[in-house]
């Protein structure tokens, strides 16, 4: 970003006359303007009758409904259900996938034995399992957790195996020639270099777990935001439905932000993060 912005400022000397606002501030301002503009367009098209008011209420009234919901307990119960499912399945998925991935990544034989099986199982859409899961585990929290764990484990597993395989050979040879013991090599050479991969896998897994939790709530009716949305839609309470969809989106944004922040902290030493810090 720096590159483009320095280029553009040097290309247009007229900008120098303006007061020196920090680029971060102007970016935030532009972003806010974009958000307001999109909402204004939606609001105006409802008012002007371009969008049917009945199925497409004004954005402002959706937001008012959301604010009202935020004052009551109902919304937070739904959010709690969804978050609970997300947290359990994300934790399970990470635990299972990192352990398996490290085992597979550190053994050539195991890697050869599992490659084809993983390649076949991974593209299977996890939602295909929904009917079976409903039969075996019912329509409650257990089903939700099973589906979300199953789906969220893949990105972490693949990332861990990739990361373990992508260790700088020179670093590994160096450790070997210093006679570092195998578990020292694993902990201080292989694992640190696999961490950036795993971190990316975690971010994808978090999103996937949330998506599958909401799917489970929506399709099989486990309690949570997804179920509340369907109930609102079936009952014709469209404002409520939109407010809940916005709430779900905000939850997604929040989880994303948390993960980006954690990744940044954990990987401060890694070049990808250093580069980003300079850019910002």
């Amino acid at each position, binding site marked *: *970003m720096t590159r*483009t*912005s320095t280029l*553009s400022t040097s290309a247009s000397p007229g900008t120098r006359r303006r007061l020196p606002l920090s680029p971060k501030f102007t970016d935030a301002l*532009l*972003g*806010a*303007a*974009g*958000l307001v*503009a999109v909402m204004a367009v939606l609001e105006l098209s409802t008012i002007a009758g371009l969008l049917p008011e009945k*199925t*497409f209420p004004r954005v402002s009234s959706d937001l008012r409904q959301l604010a009202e919901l935020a004052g009551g307990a109902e919304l937070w119960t739904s959010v709690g259900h969804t978050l609970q499912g997300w947290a359990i399945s994300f934790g399970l998925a990470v635990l299972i996938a990192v352990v398996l991935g490290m085992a597979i990544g550190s053994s*050539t*034989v195991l890697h*050869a*034995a*599992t*490659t*084809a*099986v993983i*390649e*076949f*199982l991974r*593209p*299977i*859409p*996890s*939602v*295909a399992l*929904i*009917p*079976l899961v409903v*039969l*075996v585990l019912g329509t409650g929290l257990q089903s939700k957790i099973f589906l979300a764990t199953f789906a969220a484990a893949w990105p972490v597993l693949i990332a861990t195996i990739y990361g373990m395989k992508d260790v700088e050979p020179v670093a590994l040879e160096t450790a070997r020639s210093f006679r570092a013991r195998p578990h020292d090599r694993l902990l201080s050479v292989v694992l640190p270099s696999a961490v950036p991969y795993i971190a990316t896998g975690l971010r994808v897994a978090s999103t996937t777990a949330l*998506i599958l*939790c*909401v*799917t489970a709530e*929506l*399709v099989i009716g486990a309690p949570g*935001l*997804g179920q509340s*949305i*369907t109930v*609102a*839609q079936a009952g014709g309470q*469209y404002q409520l*439905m*939109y407010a*809940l*969809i916005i709430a*779900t*989106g*905000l*939850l*997604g*944004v929040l*989880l*994303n932000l948390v993960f980006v922040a954690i990744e940044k902290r954990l990987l401060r030493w890694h070049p990808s993060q250093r580069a980003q810090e300079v850019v910002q």
Partner: protein
Amino acid sequence: MNRRTVLLGIQIAAPVLVLLGWGLWSAGSANIFYPPLTKILSVFRETWLFDRVGSDVVPSLVNMFSGFALSILIGVPLGVLIGLVRKLRTALAPVIEFVRAIPPPALIPFGIVVLGVGTSMKVFIILMVALFPVLMHTIDGVRGVEPGLLDSARAYRVSRRDQLLHVVLPAAAPQIFAGVRVALSLSLILMVISEMVASTRGIGYFILEAQRTFAIPEMWSGMVLLGILGYLFNLAFAAIERRALRWHHGARKGAS
């Protein structure tokens, strides 16, 4: 036998063993939830080869590929535009971040309210979901174009159109393909979910209906079909990508 052939042997044998294991384990199964594999396979042949292809598989796939194709047609040009214009990118970032963060299935009720339960709702949902990976990867790809390349194109007074076609798009292509790949698997998933929530035909509907009527082998056969479809799409896409980006892989191999 050397080490490589042994490893290759293991690679081929492992999936076969897994299938055999499943077959043996389920052979005398009396548990109604886990019917014998042979039963599943014979039902699979009766149901999907090719009895229900016209009534369920084709409509499902038409929806899926319509949404998927639209996501590329809209996502790539939009992504190039947003990637090239910094102001636009900054202004739209919060909006994109927000819409992208909505778990896609949450949009299905919205789709039903606005478009009803027909085909257009399903295509719309698939489009909405597949669009974002394509859009995000295209933006990233366009932003990541080596500035030296653009500068030299400019220095040679290459026209803007040619810059776009011969510098920006090829340089962003590997990223765009990565996005399209994600979009493809998401399309399949949303095709199934949209049929499970609101439909009267399609593969997703068939599986859910089979489960509700306790036609367990039929349900399993549908799950197997989805697995095979997912695997085949993945394989086909990898082949297309390898062909389209041959120059890229070649260049990378030469460099390393």
